[in-house]
């Protein structure tokens, strides 16, 4: 539970005696060594690099088409077209942008919740039950983690096409239910986090298996479940190849495919297309902000969650 330790800046087993360059980064003032200065400089450079595109996006979202060309790219123009850009983005093509936001939420939430439920049940089964074919099934699952999902997109399209499901929401949602890595994570976490004795004593008390799962195991699995949910959500939110292939009706597009379409439009239209740039920029900003907020809000969750796969 290093969370608390890092959050407070104190390390478990903190340094009793101060030595230069201790790994325990307490707040104590230490003489500035060359190494420490290099560390701080390195961190600052990395912050600038990773933040620069966000800064640019935020600044550019306040500019009109003309200002994009005439003002410095990393600083504000004299005009402030932020709200005008929002209005234009939502008004363009009869307000289709709003539909895209809704589609993205629909696809990612249903896929991610479904995938997480399936992965939790499956991972718990692998962790705590000795059923016939368990080893073989798990070996197949591990192999599947390696299979690049793009290999599956084209044949899945053809299957969906034969079922008449192409260009429906199911063509995007159903394939998103599959998350082998999630099963693996829940198993890894569950085999230690849910002690066998607890399950045994519940059985002796006469509890049914399903009740043991919902009442006892699920609360213990919470960190793993949160991690699987968060990453399923990001994966489906960011998905591009699958909806690009499956969906041809632009009223069913998710944000990624929709914005890609606008980008292509802006190119085709030449100089008139440049008028779409503020919409592209604002659309990008609006698509990114909810995820960033979700990430910041669930920080503690994903940081401890990622340790699942890494510590072993």
């Amino acid at each position, binding site marked *: 539970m290093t969370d608390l330790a890092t959050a407070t800046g104190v390390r478990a087993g903190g340094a009793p005696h101060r030595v230069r360059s201790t790994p325990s980064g307490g707040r104590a003032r230490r003489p500035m060594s060359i190494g420490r200065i290099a560390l701080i400089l390195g961190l600052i450079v990395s912050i600038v690099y990773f933040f620069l595109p966000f800064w640019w996006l935020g600044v550019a979202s306040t500019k009109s088409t003309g200002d994009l060309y005439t003002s410095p790219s990393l600083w504000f123009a004299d005009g402030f077209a932020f709200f005008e850009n929002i209005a234009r983005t939502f008004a363009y093509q009869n307000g289709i942008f709003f539909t895209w936001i809704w589609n993205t939420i629909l696809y990612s939430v249903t896929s991610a919740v479904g995938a997480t439920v399936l992965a939790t049940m499956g991972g718990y089964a692998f962790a705590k039950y000795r059923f016939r074919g368990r080893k073989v099934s798990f070996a197949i699952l591990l192999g599947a983690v390696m*299979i690049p999902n793009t290999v599956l997109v084209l044949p899945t399209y053809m299957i969906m096409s034969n079922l008449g499901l192409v260009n429906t929401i199911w063509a995007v949602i159903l394939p998103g239910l599959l998350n082998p890595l999630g099963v693996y994570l829940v198993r890894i976490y569950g085999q230690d986090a849910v002690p066998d004795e607890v399950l045994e004593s519940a059985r002796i008390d006469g509890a049914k298996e399903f009740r043991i799962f919902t009442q006892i195991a699920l609360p213990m699995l919470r960190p793993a479940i949160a991690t699987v949910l968060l990453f399923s959500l990001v994966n489906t939110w960011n998905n591009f190849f699958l909806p690009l292939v499956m969906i041809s009706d632009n009223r069913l597009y998710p944000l990624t495919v929709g914005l890609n379409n606008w980008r292509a439009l802006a190119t085709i239209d030449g100089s008139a297309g440049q008028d779409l740039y503020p919409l592209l920029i604002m659309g990008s900003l609006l698509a990114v902000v909810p995820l960033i907020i979700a990430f910041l809000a669930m920080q503690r969750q994903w940081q401890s969650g990622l340790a699942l796969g890494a510590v072993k």
Partner: protein
Amino acid sequence: MTKAIAADHVGSTTAAAGSTSGPTLKRRRTQAESRGRYGWVLLAPFAATFVLFLIVPLAYALWLSLHSRSITGSQNWAGFDNYIRVFSDSSFLGGLGRVLLYGVLQAPIMLVLALVLALMLDAVTTRLSRLSRIVAFMPYAVPAVIGVLMWGFLYSPQLGPASILTALFGDAAPDLLGSNLVLYSLVNIVTWQMTGYNMIIIYAALQGLPREIYEAARIDGAGGWKLATQIKLPLVAPAVVLSTVFTIIATLQLFSEPKVLQSTRPDAVPADFTPNMYAYNQAFAYGQFNYAATISFVLGVVIIIGSYIFLYVTRRRSGLHD
């Protein structure tokens, strides 16, 4: 089937079984069997989606790759014709060469950066390091399409900071999205997007290391540099291996980023720029689904072989016990 129990748990089940009024051996076995069956009940929903959306499409892709569509629309057995065509197809081989070059550049740059950042964050705990941990991870939340849109503007000689280059070189300014440089520009975009994610995985592993190791190292007089390179690095190697495998899988699959650039710069990013783009194009521009499935399948096999070779070379415990 041995039970997965740590040494201190040994005997818990037998103790539990003994504490009841001594059920017969036979009854206990049937109990265990029915309980085992319940494992299948829990696994069944996932197994169903696994079969429907992984096994079936994979088998179908294989079947498609071994057939070809005649003019009448019927599928005829083609043996290895499609495969022979793929391996002599300069578009496929060129694309594969391109993603390999891209991977050879992108994977080491990104993973070294992620590792260095993770070690830095582990060495100092200040407001600054907490901020950089969050900022470095933020790009992971940006969809690839939008990441490319943003960088596309940043690379633009009129709209982005790249205009500095134009000011410096005049008309001879390097075209960052031209056919010569677009691969390197893609390396930068994906590095920006994924470094933080890999950094967090390695950082989580570092945070999980027992602190006593550091104490011991300090008593032995190891400085920060020695500690990082000789003690922490070997201990988090499994996490780095994991990151590398996923990076290999991702680089060879490259699709979204160049696909978005293709609409703006078709001169620099042709339709066969990567194997996945080529497969997509064969399927949806020419209706060549058998050939597209073959390309996908061959690419998948190449990726799996590559991942396994890497895992074999860096053999380590996977952290699973049975």
